[in-house]
């Protein structure tokens, strides 16, 4: 068991190192330099002023040292949760900007991922043995799963937001409101949360339901279920075993799907102007703010790695074979 986790941890650390290095390097391959773009907004008409400001802001952004030093400083910053300052929101530290956007993204992603996974699996398993459900949920699942996030989000915004006006289509709470610990604010928060949540939820839900339905059908046809049935086991018990076996590939799928869902979440947040990380990525890209961009990506790298690690642990818990093989390896 220990060896398994040490090996896994090693893989994750290596992935973290490589991911972070790429995250640091890619923006630096972009043409121009951030100070130049920043100073373009000054519309300066004096080369002398430009030089003075260039010096000032190069220092403020930590770009006045050689590239290798910038790389070391970056790692130093990573360990101190200091990702430099944003230059579209200068002089706000990147970490503060990310912390204030993170709750909104978590509020969308975590419920959407967990609920779609849990409900999708349940409904898929049910669909595998009920014709009526199979004929209704399955086609709907295919439609939602195949739908691009942006399209579904726009359709939602158009029909439920603009046409029927049931839900707001922009922001995380009502326009004239300021965040406060009051019920009216909470209500506004939920009201604005619903459509973006529904978009991410529906697309994922369809995928899980279809996957589970097919897996359960497959499991119900395997030799061990036939054997169980021949032993006279109840249909309920057979289904339980089929479900437990079918959920394993789904769990691996969850780890693989995380990146896709996060990508879809970016688009959804942009469409609904929802102030989470996705919207922030969009703003950072359009403002070419690559300190902010690399900070957000670092958060996503860490988030995805942690989620994968948790799934690995869960996998060990739910799959007896993994544990047994590890015990065998230890013996």
């Amino acid at each position: 068991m220990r060896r398994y986790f040490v090996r896994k941890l090693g893989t994750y650390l290596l992935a973290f190192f490589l991911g972070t290095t790429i995250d640091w390097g890619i923006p630096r391959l972009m043409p121009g330099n951030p100070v130049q773009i920043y100073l373009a907004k000054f519309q300066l008409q004096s080369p002398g002023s430009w030089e003075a400001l260039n010096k000032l802001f190069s220092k403020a952004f930590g770009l006045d040292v050689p590239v290798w030093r910038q790389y070391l400083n970056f790692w130093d910053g990573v360990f101190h949760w200091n990702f430099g300052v944003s230059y579209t929101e200068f002089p706000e530290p990147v970490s503060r900007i990310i912390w204030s956007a993170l709750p909104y993204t978590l509020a969308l992603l975590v419920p959407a991922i967990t609920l779609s996974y849990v409900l999708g699996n349940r409904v898929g398993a049910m669909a595998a043995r009920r014709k009526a459900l199979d004929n209704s949920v399955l086609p709907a699942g295919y439609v939602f799963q195949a739908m691009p996030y942006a399209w579904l989000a726009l359709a939602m915004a158009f029909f439920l937001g603009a046409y029927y006006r049931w839900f707001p289509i922009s922001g995380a709470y009502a326009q004239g409101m300021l965040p406060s610990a009051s019920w009216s604010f909470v209500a506004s928060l939920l009201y604005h949360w619903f459509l973006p949540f529904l978009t991410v939820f529906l697309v994922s839900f369809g995928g899980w339901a279809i996957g589970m339905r097919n897996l359960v059908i497959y499991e119900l046809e395997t030799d061990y279920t036939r054997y169980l049935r021949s032993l006279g086991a109840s249909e309920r018990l057979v289904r339980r075993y089929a479900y437990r076996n079918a959920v394993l590939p789904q769990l691996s799928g969850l780890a693989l799907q995380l990146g896709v869902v996060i990508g879809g979440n970016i688009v959804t947040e942009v469409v609904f102007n929802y102030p989470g990380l996705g919207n922030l990525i969009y703003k950072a890209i359009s403002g070419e703010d690559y300190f902010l961009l690399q900070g957000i990506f670092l958060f996503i790298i860490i988030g995805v790695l942690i989620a994968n690690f948790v799934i690995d642990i869960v996998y060990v818990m739910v799959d007896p074979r993994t544990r047994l093989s590890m015990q065998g390896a230890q013996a």
Partner: protein
Amino acid sequence: MLRSKTKVLARAGTALAAAAMVAPLISVAAGSGSAGAQTTNYPRSETLYTSGTAYSPPNNFNPNDLGSLYTGTVGLLYEPLYLYDPIHSKYIPWLAKSGGWSGTNYVIHVRPGVDWVASPSGNVVGTLSGADVAFSINLAKDNPADPWNANVSTVKSVTYGGDTVIVHFTSHPAYTSWQDFLWNAPVLPASIWSKMSATQQMTAANTSPVATGPMVLSSTTSTQACFAHNPHWWGTAQLGLSFKFKYLCDEVNSSNNVELSQLLATNIDWSNNFLPGIAALVNGALGGNSGYGIKTYYPSKPYMLSANTVWLDMNTTKAPMNNVNFRKAVAYAINTQQIQSSVYTGMVQVANPTGLLPNLDQYVDKSVVSKYGFSYNPNLAKKYLKLSGYKGQKLTIEVPDGWTDWMAGIDVISQDLNAIGIHVTPEYPQYATRESDLINGTYDMALDNNAGIDSTPWSYFQRVFNLPILPKQSATLNWARFSDPKAWALVQQAATVPLSDTAKLKSVYGQLEQDFLQALPDVPLWYNGAWFQGQTKYWTNYPSATNPADQYTPVMWHGWLGAMTTIYALANLKPAS
């Protein structure tokens, strides 16, 4: 046992989901970006919602940091000594009660009765005095990183006594640059800014500003900054100006589709976004049937005031752009009228051949324009092309990716140029790439609109003729890399002509216009609009060309709000009900 584990996990997942949903609340309880808000709700009927100026959240209210300062920093909070009215071509004394030249000294009489007010409390913490004005001028003079440093390069020293400030200049004052300083540079409270380090003065976020303007900063979130009425503002008592709205919230810009729907849904009152096709909605509204209730400055074409000149930069260090006949061929080949009608549906004006904005008409020498000016004429273009000895080189023309109107514009231009035999391909690199191409001179042709509105033609011609040409033209000057030492000497001479000597100025600028039209290092195309859409659901009486009492600049952009007549426009707004 296994089954119960799966159940536990499912429950844990649900609990995690529930916890994540309350995450925004936890962040609220931990204190969001609110700058000590006094209110938690802005009543719709007392709030003016504006948009179209900011692309990132409000974190910076430092009037010296032009790269990050948020809308309203200058104008609603800090104020300059004068304002400039581009529609009536005049200066309006603002924090200066009056001022004028006395030899090579400029004497400023500081307006009495102006309070320094703290945000967000609205408490008076001091009174504006000559010391503040002198400090602000010295700050620009002594700190090379101050964005107005070049404007005060000929200032020798500043003395003050009470409310009188005397600015001593060298024997040849740069009158024009100084004039620009007067209506652009904000006056800062000496008691606060003198305590900051030189770096802090330029880079501090200044989120609790102490200023003189009509509003105080009330709150900030990641999507908006809200300002509240400043009850101590001097303009109410001294100029009879008062805002009928209690709050002004400026929304951070999001994608174009959200901006347009927010305007149509009446969530935005005052929009300074470029919204393609808005003309159709305005027409409908004016027809009285479609009822979008949207107003623009002009009720019909061109709908918008002109804000800056879009011109075609030609890299004159490269062949064939180094040949004047080739440049003329390009100028005569472009059908700007077509761009105006097809790309902009009439929302912009075709530029005068000199490229000078309409507010500078008095400086345009009509005889020079009629003699040397150009207009769309493909036959003449072909003649010039032949004279240039163009050898069929393949050329490119660049605009930043995502600037959709310009992208469509250079498509038209490329077609026009190809039609007379110039092989041009449009290119849409990222903004940063295009910027570095222009700065490093690694481009053939490109559009730019650096030449913004100004009260004299001086900065325009500085942009055209500035010398020397550096390997990196980092300041937004002479991107065509055109070298004409005689013209540059004339520009420098124009800088030292007093603004009162209009005859001399007109003759110098007339000569520069001729030099420009004869050489055409840049081809003026059209004037980008001062995009403005007013939604009349909650507020009415927006600035309008048809109302002589309300001809003010309807623009919240930096460089307009705190420098031109936007404050008057805001003061004229009335509640709709």
